[in-house]
């Protein structure tokens, strides 16, 4: 009986695995095609015949993107100029606020928290027009400031997640530290920051991916090529070169732009998936 059951389970497992594999192949096939077509010639892509293997293989487009076109590396520089300060300062302000919301007692705490949380529901479309006007007045448009400054004040999603994370750590730890005469900033810095290190790292990785992949805000606030972020550069490649159909070049640039987020995901996928699942199941 048991033997039969395991045999049956094995067959079902086999079929399920086969179907899931077929599905997975269908999911990544466009991306594989993207990589393959970055090695093709223009002629091969522009022919209506179905072919996915480059013939002949051309490797020159990657060098062209990286070295012959200043736009790409400039876009990379601009994206990093946004990401580094935002993640360092914003990560600090977010975790400090999460600590305060979770472990300190102060008047108006719940109201302030709810106020912050409600912003997650406001569509960006509502604030983008006033922000654009505001930033134009301050002379921030066509610079990276509109992308950097708001991030320095912290991110509501990160605060929310870290606060949830801290709620599983007993508050008695904070109470004990207070009794021992530990200052509030030291309680954060020496006790709770180390305790939320893992969760904070995951949130910062997700935040980095968000900044890296963002297109809407940069495209509204920046029109000067000099300050284009990487995603804008990729998009501009598409519109400039589509006419000449330098499709392999566009694909090579796209592949390069995917590598950092994919690597981060592969290395930290356990934490990333866990944190996505937590916000979905408990949130």
């Amino acid at each position, binding site marked *: 009986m048991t033997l039969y059951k395991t045999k049956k389970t094995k067959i079902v*497992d086999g079929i*399920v695995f086969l*179907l*899931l594999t077929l*599905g*997975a192949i269908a*999911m*990544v096939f*466009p*991306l594989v*095609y993207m990589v393959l077509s970055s090695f093709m010639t223009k002629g091969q892509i*522009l022919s*209506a015949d179905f*072919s*996915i293997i480059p013939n002949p293989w051309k490797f020159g487009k990657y060098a062209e993107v990286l070295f012959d076109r200043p736009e790409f590396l400039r876009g990379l520089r601009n994206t990093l100029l946004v990401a580094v300060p935002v993640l360092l300062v914003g990560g600090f*302000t977010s975790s400090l606020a999460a600590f*305060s919301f979770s472990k*300190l*007692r*102060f*008047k*108006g705490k719940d109201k302030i928290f709810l*106020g912050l949380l409600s912003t997650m*529901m*406001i*569509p*960006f*479309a*509502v604030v983008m*027009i*006033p*922000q654009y006007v505001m930033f134009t007045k301050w002379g921030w448009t066509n610079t990276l400031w509109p992308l950097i400054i*708001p991030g*320095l*004040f912290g991110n*509501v999603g990160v*605060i929310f997640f870290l606060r949830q994370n801290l709620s599983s750590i007993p508050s008695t730890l904070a109470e004990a530290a*207070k*009794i*021992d*005469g530990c*200052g*509030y900033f030291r309680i*954060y810095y020496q006790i709770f920051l180390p305790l939320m290190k893992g969760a904070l790292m995951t949130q910062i990785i997700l935040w980095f991916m968000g900044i*890296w*992949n963002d*297109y*809407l805000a940069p495209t509204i606030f920046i029109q000067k090529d000099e300050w284009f972020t990487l*995603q804008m550069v*990729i998009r501009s490649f*598409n519109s400039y070169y589509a006419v000449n159909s330098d499709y392999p070049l566009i694909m090579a640039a*796209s592949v390069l732009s*995917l590598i950092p987020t*994919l690597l*981060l*995901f592969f290395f930290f996928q356990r934490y990333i998936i866990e944190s996505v*699942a*937590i916000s*979905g*199941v408990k949130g």
Partner: protein
Amino acid sequence: MIESKVRREEHPANKAERQPEQKPSKGPAKKKMGRAALIEHRWGLAFVAPPFIGFLIFMAFPIVFAFVASLTKWNGMNNMLDRVVWFENYAKLLTDEKFWKVLGNTVIYMIGIPIGMVLGLVIAVGMNRKIRGIKVLRTLYYVPVVSSLVAVAILWMWVFNYDFGLLNSMIKFFTGQKGINWLGDEFWVKVSMIIFMVWKGLGTSIILYLAGLQSIPRDYYEAATIDGASSWNLFRHITVPLVSPVTFYLLITGLIGGFQVFVEVLVMVPTGGLDYSAATVVFYLYEKAFGSRQMGYGAAMAFLLAILIFIITAINFKAQDKWVKTLD
């Protein structure tokens, strides 16, 4: 740390130790705060000040500003209050055929939400077995989620290309027929966008459903199996109700995100499609506000969109007791 030693003397917790009859202050007490509590209150506020100030400058103020702007015929350059028209923009929107069209398109794209849910749940059920190599598959399904929207939108734009796109060359290869004008046809452009959005977001539904499935106790299934329930009944009466919190979350986030679809359209069909057949509300709003500089009209549209999102989210939260089950 001399200061904190002094503070220690006056801390309510210390006092409470010495005078057990006095209750330790709980949160923002109505009575006057003790000194230690006051110090904590100040530090607490100081620590949340950065995000709160950011919220005031970059969210609260712009929201008020956007509302005032929505009552004017403002082009972004002139004095906003020169031409106050009150609710004329809103009235005009309700009779603006283009607005109804883009709203319709936006809603049609939401067909992708249930499609993604069903596929996500089915795949997650398949993955919720102890099979070797399943983790690799899970990773593969999630890859589109972490890929940059612009890069994959460009990729799919070429996949859908009428003359030499991957899809049409496959159709020609297998059937010998000329393919479909995916992005150039009023009907197929919507199908294309839905396919793209389901593909991009499927990984998230799978991950969330998988987490939901893993939280269902095994003995529920065992008990039902002993009672003679079929696999379909197990799925229908145990799995589906018990993952309903995930379904609810996906529905809410899907709707909120669905109303704001924009970048996908901007990249894949920059013109908004034949006869505006691919344009969404935010696409139209963007063109009005930044293209033809009708900032007031754009702001009114944004506000209407926000109100719509708010109402639909509120209805969903009200209705959730009817179908969202929890384990406890």
